[in-house]
């Protein structure tokens, strides 16, 4: 667990193995520092909106990017996305939807709600790593996100 205000990447993912694989992929591109993992939608929202366990955190302090799975316990990914994008304080945070689902309506719905990017987790880990590298959000991490 990292300091809430120093978090650069929020990874919302309920499957621990996928968390591990994702972190490994990020690590391969030296992006694994200051990653916070939320195991469900509710926890993700608490972090993002600085409530509950994260109430001491400043909303304005990030994260710089959110990797969001859609199929989540408690509050599902699309709901989390909707809440982020409908709040003035958080709507500028880039959200990359990362999911195993290829369901067309998910893709369409995600973009409608304001997702900045969308990647389908390939079955092959190699391809997953490649997909992460192609996300092209390095600059987001290096620069201040637009307000």
């Amino acid at each position, binding site marked *: 667990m990292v300091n809430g205000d120093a978090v650069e990447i929020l990874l919302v993912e309920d*499957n621990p*193995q*996928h968390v*591990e*694989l994702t972190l*490994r992929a990020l690590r391969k591109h030296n992006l694994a520092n200051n990653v916070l993992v939320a195991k469900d939608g509710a926890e993700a929202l608490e972090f993002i909106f600085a409530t509950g366990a994260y109430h001491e955190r400043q909303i304005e302090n990030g994260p710089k990017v959110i990797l969001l799975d859609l*199929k989540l316990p408690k509050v599902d990914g699309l709901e989390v996305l909707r809440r982020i994008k409908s709040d003035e304080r958080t709507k500028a945070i880039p959200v990359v939807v990362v*999911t*195993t*689902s*290829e*369901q*067309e309506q998910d893709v369409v719905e995600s973009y409608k709600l304001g997702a900045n990017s969308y990647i389908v*987790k*390939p*079955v*092959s*880990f*190699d391809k*997953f790593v490649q997909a992460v590298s192609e996300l092209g959000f390095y600059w987001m991490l290096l620069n201040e996100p637009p307000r």
Partner: protein
Amino acid sequence: MQAGRTSAQIKTEIERLFGIFPSFFHPVLDTPETLESLLQQALTSYVNNPLPAVFKEKLFARLSRHCATPYCLVTHSCMMRFLGQSAGEIARVLESPTPATEADLEEPLHMLAAATAPMPVWPEPGSRQEEALLLCAEISFLNSKGAVTCRAELRRLLGPVNHAHLMRFLSFVKLAHLWIEAYPEISYQEDERTMELLASLVRDEPRLADFFSRYPEIVRCERESREERLSTELADLKRIEEALRVSEEQVRLILDSTAEGIFGCDSNGTCLFCNRAAAHLLGYDDPAELLGRNMHALEHHTRADGTPYPIEECPIYIGFQKGEGVHRDDEVYWRKDGTSFPVEFWSHPIVRDGRTTGAVVTFVDITERKRADEALRQYVERLRILQEIDRSILAAQSAVEIASVALRRLREMVPTERITVVLRGPAPDEATVLATDEDAERNLEAGKRLPLEPYGNLAHRISETLQRGETYFLDVLDVPDPVPAVRDMQATGRRYYFIVPLLVHGELIGSLSLGTNCASDLTAEHLEVARGVADGLAIAVQQARLHERIGQHAAELEQRVAERTAELEAFSYSVSHDLRTPLLTIDGFSRMLLEDHSDGLDEEGRRLLKTICGNSQNMGRLIDDLLAFSRLGRQEMRPAEIKMSELAAAVCAELTAVAPERKLQFNLQTLPPAHGDQPMIKQVFVNLLANAIKFSSPRDLAVIEVGAAAGEDQNVYYVKDNGVGFEMKYADKLFGVFQRLHSDDEFAGTGVGLAFVQRIIHRHGGRVWAEGKIGEGATVYFTLPRKGRKSW
């Protein structure tokens, strides 16, 4: 002349007057009264007749040629001699031709007319006028052809006095002829003076000797020819008369035997003649009853609607004024007994000298025809209604709509105050109003449910009758045990109901009832119409109900399909998500093991791990293909015309680009355009051409041909390769999902490519099949429509 003279005294007188006692008087010498009378007649008409003496003798002699005995002829020829006429002149008079025909009269009459009438001076002896006069007198005397004209003309020309003299003279000649014929003993030979004169005549003109000797023969011939002529004329007359009689009889027979009434009337409309049919049609026994009556007043006095019909408005009368014929078939004639009948009549004006003098009217009773027309009209109307009901069925309208259409049409044809259609059900002891008249009481409207129980036995009786296919006649005032519901019906004031069954294959599904207060308004034909409509209606309603039921069924099915589809999509989602999730983990963790702990594994361990990775990736592909395949069935199609040649060429180019290591030869023929969803058809080409490339990989040069044959509705396209081919007995398996004829070692793939092709082609309404032989390549054919269909 003194009365009561003796014969001797008279004889003396005669001898004094004539110089002799002519043989003419001998037969009555012993009867002084007769002798006296004969003498007086001779004196008055002949001797003292003021006509010129020579003319009298000439005429006497000439007329006597027609007498059977020669006495007068010879005597008066001699008298001519006595009066100084030459023998030649006498012969000429005697030999002058006897008039035979009317034409012979023309010239003499014309000649006489040239003289001023009345004739002032008697014509000169021997003149042509005298001759003409002689001829005319002869014609009058003989009463031969033209005698009538001749007499009238003579009367005019001669003046009354001379004409009377001439007639008197002719009468005496007639008398003389009868006289001498009656007494053959009278002979000229007895008269000495005559014999002397005769001798001198014959001497001067020997022709006369011959003439006199042949005289009896001449007279006989003359008579015979005249009689013959007369009898011929008589026969002619008789023939003409007979012909006239026959012709008249035929006309009468025709007039009387024709079925059409025929009568003729004058310009006032008074009946001049009338045939038997006319009398009978108008209710009279004898045509004579109509003669002299005014026909308009008799049979045309009132219009069909009972209003008076003044003659000034009668088309016959009006046509008559204009001299025009008239034809009408929309009026009535009235019979003697005051009844009327629809009539068709024709009036023809009779025009004489440019003036209409009357009219002939022909007429027929068209009651039967009108009835037939009416029956036909009703029949056509019934057909129209039934057709309309049929159309309603085709238009798949609801039972309620069909019933109201039928009801509306029925109302136009059947005089009734109320029509109601009820159907049995929904409960067994219930009926439901399907349709009723707009002007019906508000207590009965479409959709209202009527329990039958309150009607008690009546409902039973009606139901039983209807079940037998019969019409139930209900008089609400004549129900034996009126239950309250029946009393309610009585209270509406409507008394009679004709209840017609609605039967479908013997099953009573409802009834159609016609309510009226006047049962006699409804004829058997009306009920027939109602039954026809009820029969059609029953079927239509049943159909509509079935249709509604099918509609409900279809809606249910659609609902169920929608549910299943939703389930399937949920399933797909879970396959997509849940099956892939562990696969990613398997692959990822195997990879991590290889990367992080490679040193701890031997070669065999690493091979096993790689196999795990390969298979998990393989399974991922299978899942992806399966999902894509299932999505294909739901994907919306946007059909349009596709330029197949261009599409095939584009796909070939793309595939060539991703297989740079292969030597490929594409033979692309010109392909006719097709109608379909372009992205899908592109997928077809991708799959077929990729297969062709894949299965021809053992060849150094892959030869791939794309061709087509245009058809009437569908074009046939094919993709042919020179690859490894297949055994025809497995041809059907090619198109099954995940069906493969080769191992993965030989040719990679999941086995959905051709299943994809088949699914797309089938969705386009086409067919797909393959031909091939091991080692000799394969050809896949598919068909696509040339033109768009109405729906996909």
